[in-house]
């Protein structure tokens, strides 16, 4: 059996590691960095550049350098927020099969999971080199409010990267696990995760070895990227005013400004005042470039981002309210993500919670730590008495990894910690008249299974379509449609006579499966919902990067294995494509007959 690793697959940065008998170890690149940019660069001349070496190419080779792919994973390209996010990306994104985004670089069309798989492969290889063992399984973290299709996309990415995805764990939950692991505490903690693309907030009860999520919420399009965008807009208007050139319609120019914006933002974290010249702003096809001067004070910056920061505090307020807790009930606040370094964020956070956030946590690495611990626990690979050596800040406060003692010959896992997570959004079922009713409210424990009886809305209705939504609104169209399920051949009868038993099952990865059964005929249909925009690949083929120094025989063997895997994947993709196609036809038909 190979290694089971934990991976924090971030919008901006990714971290991977393994829980070993000496503690959690994170994989570093050749320069010693443990945090790796989630960037893939595919230069025109061929080859593939990954991680921190690819990051610098955002400036030098923008149209072939893919970043923030996580913002697109499992999304419908036609969704307004996705359109907005796409507008600021310098690489082209097109609409593919099933309305999923397709990234086009160097004439190559790639699904988003394929791109994310490249990031995962990079991390996997770093781990394999460093820990000198083959990696087979992984726990991958996702934002708590990721939807079904985003989760499926992430799992798909893992599969393409050749990993058995043992579990998707919510990022804030992983952070809490790393924070409280082996500390036998009895505390309520709040996790505030503000990264590059997303914002998540969770409240957990840590009851020695049980980590129970009491409530969670977040915003998907709220992160450091959005702040960069705001500063870039500010720089653009500055340019327009002083040089009378509007860079907004010019992608190369906006890309340059975005990169500068991120630097300015980070500079303002430790300085009161930023100013200088941004040069090399290419403003037309012939490569003409200009420079612009700017000045931005911390105060001005704070007032620019105030709205964003308030939105994060609002989420905290809502989660606390929904769990029936008050600020004073929270024992500790854990900060996660690069954007929590912004002084205004820290200030508002400590004001709101009336306490200083925990400082022993490294906001960049804590999620990967938790993922690595969970991976080891699921694999049953960590044994009693192991200790975790943690990052710099944690080093003087070491976290023991004590897995408990399994009963002899019985349970192979000591498994001293247990994550009890919840659904981040209410799952609903469509009812008559354009309305919906909640079936499993948000913050329901997972895995969970609920069954309820429904009936037909009309007499002699021979078919019902069970539409499933995600969100908090009664009106169907104010929620996100997850997909639908169709039950046919219902025997004729009066309105309300049919008895349709509907079961929602949410699996441990927080993915919904729906089942419907006609109690009179015993007809049953079951489906993982087919989501519009979900990744159904048109091209699963990945190239095989062979490690150097292999004998011809070894290489041939690897190639053969790879080819087999590829064929399997293609077959599967073909099946899924056919299924999705069928589903669409059905849904269209329903619109024609106008049944509800």
């Amino acid at each position, binding site marked *: 059996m190979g290694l089971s690793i934990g991976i924090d697959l971030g919008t901006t940065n990714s971290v991977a590691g393994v829980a070993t008998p000496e503690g959690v170890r994170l994989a570093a690149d050749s320069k010693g960095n443990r945090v790796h940019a989630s960037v893939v660069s595919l230069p025109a001349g061929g080859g593939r550049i990954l991680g921190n070496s690819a990051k610098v190419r955002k400036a030098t080779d923008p149209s072939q350098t893919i970043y923030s792919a996580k913002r697109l994973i499992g999304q419908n390209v036609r969704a307004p927020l996705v359109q907005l996010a796409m507008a600021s990306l310098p690489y082209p994104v097109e609409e593919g099969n099933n309305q999923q985004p397709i990234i086009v670089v160097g004439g190559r069309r790639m699904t988003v999971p394929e791109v994310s798989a490249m990031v995962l492969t990079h991390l996997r290889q770093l781990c394999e080199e460093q820990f000198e063992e083959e990696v087979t399984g992984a726990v991958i973290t996702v934002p708590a409010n990721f939807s079904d299709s985003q989760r499926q996309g992430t799992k798909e990415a893992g599969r393409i990267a050749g990993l058995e995805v043992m579990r998707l764990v919510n990022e804030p939950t992983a952070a809490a696990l790393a924070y409280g692991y082996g500390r036998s505490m009895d505390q309520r903690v709040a996790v505030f995760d503000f990264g590059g693309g997303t914002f998540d907030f969770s409240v957990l009860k840590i*009851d020695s*070895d*049980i980590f*129970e999520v009491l409530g969670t919420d977040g915003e998907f399009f709220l992160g450091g990227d959005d702040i960069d965008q705001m500063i870039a807009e500010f720089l653009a208007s500055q340019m327009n005013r002083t040089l009378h050139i509007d860079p907004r319609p010019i992608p190369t120019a906006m890309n340059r400004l975005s990169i500068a914006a991120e630097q300015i933002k980070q500079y303002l974290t430790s300085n009161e005042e930023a100013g200088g010249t941004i040069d090399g702003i290419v403003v037309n096809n012939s490569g003409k470039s200009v420079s612009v001067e700017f000045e931005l004070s911390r105060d001005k910056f704070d007032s620019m981002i105030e709205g964003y920061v308030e939105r994060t505090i609002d989420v905290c307020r809502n989660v606390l309210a929904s769990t029936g807790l008050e600020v004073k009930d929270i024992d500790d606040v854990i900060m996660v993500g690069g954007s929590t370094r912004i002084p205004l964020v820290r200030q508002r956070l400590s004001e709101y919670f009336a306490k200083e956030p925990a400082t022993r946590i490294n906001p960049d690495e804590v999620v990967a730590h938790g993922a690595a611990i969970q991976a080891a*626990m*699921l*694999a*049953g690979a960590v044994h009693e008495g192991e200790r975790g050596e943690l990052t710099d800040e944690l080093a003087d406060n070491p976290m023991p990894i004590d897995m*408990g003692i*399994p*009963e002899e010959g*019985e*349970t*192979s*896992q000591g*498994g001293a910690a*247990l*994550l*009890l997570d919840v659904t981040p959004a209410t799952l609903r079922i469509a009812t008559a008249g354009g309305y919906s009713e909640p079936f*499993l*409210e948000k913050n*329901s*424990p*997972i*895995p*969970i*299974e*609920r069954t309820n009886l429904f009936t037909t809305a009309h007499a002699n209705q021979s078919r019902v379509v069970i539409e499933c939504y995600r969100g908090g609104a009664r009106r169907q169209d104010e929620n996100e449609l997850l997909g639908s399920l169709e039950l046919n051949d219902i025997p004729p009868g009066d309105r309300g006579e049919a008895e349709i038993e509907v079961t929602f*099952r*949410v*699996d*441990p990865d927080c993915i919904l499966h729906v089942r419907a059964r006609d109690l009179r005929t015993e007809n049953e249909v079951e489906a993982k919902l087919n989501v519009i925009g979900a990744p159904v690949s048109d091209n699963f083929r990945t190239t095989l990067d062979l490690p150097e120094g292999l004998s011809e025989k070894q290489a041939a063997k690897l190639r053969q294995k790879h080819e087999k895997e590829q064929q399997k994947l293609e077959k599967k993709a073909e099946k899924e494509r056919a299924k999705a196609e069928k589903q669409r036809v059905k849904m269209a038909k329903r619109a024609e007959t106008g049944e509800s």
Partner: protein
Amino acid sequence: MRPWSKRELLAYLDRIMPALEGLDHFELLDVPPDADDKTIQGAFHNMAGGLHPDRHRNVLSPSQHERLIVVYARIAEAYRVLRSPEHREKYLIDEAKRRKKTTTTVRAPQEIASALALLSPKAQQLYRRAIAAKRTGDTASAVLNLRMALAKHPQSGFLKEALKKLR
């Protein structure tokens, strides 16, 4: 909380799987009908600690593990309902209606079988002895046997109810 041993777990699955449909939420969580929030949360943590599928991934066969997930998912649903006063009230009303439909006041035989299945074999035996004693009019030993069963399952609403009826 120590995870259950494989033996305990398999015995539990064998008992509970056939009875799953007939069990109410209180029985699934193993709490009395008047349990408060704290008791409910404690019971859920206890059960999760013992039988959560993540804790038994590597000792069970895939099909056993699947069954465990099904049972756990039902327990989670019981927890979701019982911890919320609103859901709990609605559930009690629905449940009362359902009961009325099947039989009046007395439990349906299938429900008794389900509730019994939850108990350990020893407690089941004690319960049967109590019922037999009651039939012969020996209330004292019926009570004694029920008490002994209750000592094994102090939270069992089913046994408490039976004891109350006997008196």
